């Protein structure tokens, strides 16, 4: 699942380790989510949204990108 976690984290000047501490998970988990190798559970997704002050659907996008690189209508 695509997400903007890395962008949000970088905007705040946080390291992966610092974000991991804030979320109560390992740095490996943060990295796996950022690289879309792992989708977080719902409780973790809510914690991520709370940490960044955004809604879950503003951070995570379940839609696959269209062949031309653009996303379809919401």
């Amino acid at each position, binding site marked *: 699942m695509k997400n903007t976690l890395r962008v949000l984290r970088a905007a705040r000047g946080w390291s992966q380790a610092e974000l*991991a501490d804030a979320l*109560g*998970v*390992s*740095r*490996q*988990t943060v*990295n*796996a989510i950022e690289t879309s*190798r*792992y989708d*977080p*559970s719902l409780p*973790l997704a809510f914690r991520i949204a709370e940490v960044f002050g955004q809604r879950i659907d503003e951070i995570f996008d379940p839609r696959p990108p269209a062949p031309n690189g653009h996303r379809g209508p919401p």
Partner: protein
Amino acid sequence: MHEQDVVPARRWLRGFACELTEQDRRNAGVFTRWSVLWSLGLVASTFALDGGWVPAGAPAVVVALAPNVFGLFALRAFMRFLRETDELQRKIHLEALAAGFGGGVIFMWGYRLLERAGAPQLDTSDGLLAMILVWAAGLWVGMRRYA
């Protein structure tokens, strides 16, 4: 050992490297300590029984069963580690355990047929060894997949 020998070894070990939280490290440490005690107990019991140091009957049974107490504590510690760990670590460990269990069962049942076909007879612990090796391989694959 030359540097070019050390670097490939470190790359291989990276597959086992997992960045645990402080709580996970504590829980893993508890599990490791009980596992070491369990292993030492098994070795001591084996020497005591094989060396004839223990009278036959009830004393021998007690000596044979005693290491299992450490094993139960190790099991409890591992269950606590699984319950309290990071969700990705839990996924990796559960998948590795499933692979180890399945691999061990396939090996043990499969080898039974090979024995009927003339293969050398194996000990029960050989099946357990297969289970542990597949579990370790599963852990390594899981850690690398999400590294």
